[in-house]
């Protein structure tokens, strides 16, 4: 009798753990199917001319994504220029002076922005920049991406500032160095690697965003005309091509997706490997 019960419990044990293992395998399989499919379809359509040419007029086969890649780089770069200082300096405030009510409010606001869907941030930029200026612009796209980026940079920077040993700071203060110099010349430089890693993670996140760009940067089939005009971006090109009825554009969408995935995943993986090395495997 006991034997039978024990056997049943052991069978349940084995069964449930096989099930959970199957879940894990399913999760991993999804990832590898996706990556494999993109490489399979993308590599077939990818060549040098695709990377260096402008899109052809609608209906004509061929053409490339040169303007989209340059546009993406420019939009993301401006977003980083706008967002990184706010994120890093805000984190310095939180770490150095932020254990009060103001710090609580800043943390709350950052969490709110962090949880907001990117499309809502895009609507924000649309109302703030596109509507008053009455034109779609790369500037509005960058502003939207900067808002998405700020809370990510803020949080990761604060975390890395916390890892700086107190003895370093105390050594500086003991030598009579003013506090602001200690922060700028000792604390921030010694956390610099981690801060850069956080920035890299944020940049690779916003590089793949398309929702906030649809009605801000808007897209463009030619070289852009400066920051105040519509600009093309890689995710926008993929979106337009994927929902189009043209066979050739579908092929190009796969190739563009492969380029985007390569860039985004390279940034993401590099950042997480660096982070893992920096602060132990447990919270990488």
């Amino acid at each position, binding site marked *: 009798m006991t034997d039978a019960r024990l056997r049943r419990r052991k069978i349940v*044990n084995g069964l449930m753990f096989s*099930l959970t293992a199957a*879940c894990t395998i399913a999760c991993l399989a999804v990832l590898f199917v996706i990556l494999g499919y993109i490489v399979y379809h993308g590599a077939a359509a990818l060549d040098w001319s695709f990377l260096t040419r402008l899109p052809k007029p609608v209906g004509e086969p061929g053409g490339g994504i040169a303007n989209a890649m340059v546009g993406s780089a420019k939009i993301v770069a401006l977003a980083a220029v706008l967002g990184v200082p706010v994120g890093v300096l805000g984190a*310095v405030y939180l770490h150095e002076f932020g254990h009060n009510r103001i710090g609580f409010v800043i943390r709350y606001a950052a969490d709110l922005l962090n949880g907001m869907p990117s499309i809502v941030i895009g609507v924000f930029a649309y*109302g703030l920049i596109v509507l008053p200026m009455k034109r779609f612009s790369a500037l509005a796209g960058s502003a939207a991406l900067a808002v998405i980026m*700020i809370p990510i940079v803020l949080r990761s920077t604060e975390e890395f500032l916390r890892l700086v040993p107190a003895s370093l700071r105390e050594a500086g203060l003991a030598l009579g160095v003013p506090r602001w110099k200690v922060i700028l010349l000792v604390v921030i430089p010694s956390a610099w690697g981690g801060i850069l890693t956080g920035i890299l993670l944020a940049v690779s996140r916003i590089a793949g965003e398309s929702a906030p760009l649809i009605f801000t940067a808007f897209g463009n089939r030619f070289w852009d005309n400066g920051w105040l005009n519509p600009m093309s971006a890689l995710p926008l090109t993929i*979106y337009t091509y994927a929902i189009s009825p043209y066979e050739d554009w579908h092929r190009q969408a796969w190739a563009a*997706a492969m380029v*985007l995935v390569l860039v985004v995943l390279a940034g993401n993986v590099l950042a997480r490997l660096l982070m893992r090395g920096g602060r132990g495997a447990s919270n990488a």
Partner: protein
Amino acid sequence: MSKGGAVAGLTERAGDRLFRYGVLCAGLAVVGLAAALALELASGSRLAWSEFGPAFLWSSSWNPVSERFGALPFLYGTLVSSALALAIAGPLGVGSAIFLAELAPRRISDACCFFIEILAAVPSVVLGLMGIFILVPGVRAVSPFLIEHLGFLPFFRGTPYGVGMLTAGLILSIMILPYITSISREVLLSVPRPLKEAALALGATRWETVRLVSLPYARSGILGAVFLALGRALGETMAVTMVIGNSPRISASLFDPAYTMAAVLANELAEATSDLHLHALMAIAGTLFMLTLGMNALARWMILGTPTARRRP
């Protein structure tokens, strides 16, 4: 804490004060942005709220030509597609979290988790592309079978177009799976060893330990992970827009095309010509804002609830 610099009665130097105000500005800029976002959504949608009142939320007509706007089809699409995603990704994610936290050796577990988190980094538009060319034909192929055998349920009726609620739910479940898995795993790893060892010492099998010790202990954290994922699913735009069919109708069938709040913003905002249409879209963005805010607050409250649970005997 601002006086923390003034160790032992030293007054704050001018440079220090300047620096503190400088970084304070950066911090307040974050608060300013969040406030401006809320204000923008409120003031940008006032026409819609004054025209339709709260009935905007439960009116189901959406017609830009006759200027009749109601958010219900989008609200319904967002909630149902997210719920569907949760129904698929929830068990799968928690299941693999159990495996990774309780059974797999630590190194394999870390490696698997690393890969699963890569899934979270795949851009949404790329998943949408996969959805259009793999999931849509797949669903179209499978649905006649489901209609034939499960057609007595209202969820499995109608014409299988391929695009629709079910496809959107599937693609969303792929997007939220990494969040559920990796956070649940963290929570399960934080279950104190002595508790588990006590159960094992009493003769419980490993699964019984999971079921009777680990899962009850980690319950609020796992629920928090699920709500966090739900918050993500509610606002997901690109992939859903590409596969849900974009039709503002409410239908019980999962095969019918539907629409979500994020998708209608993506499709119509750039082309909204009349003020009322624009304000109605802003009102939808505002609703999405409130919904995500609530969901994230709930999630944070539950995840933060975990350490308190630890102190319970």
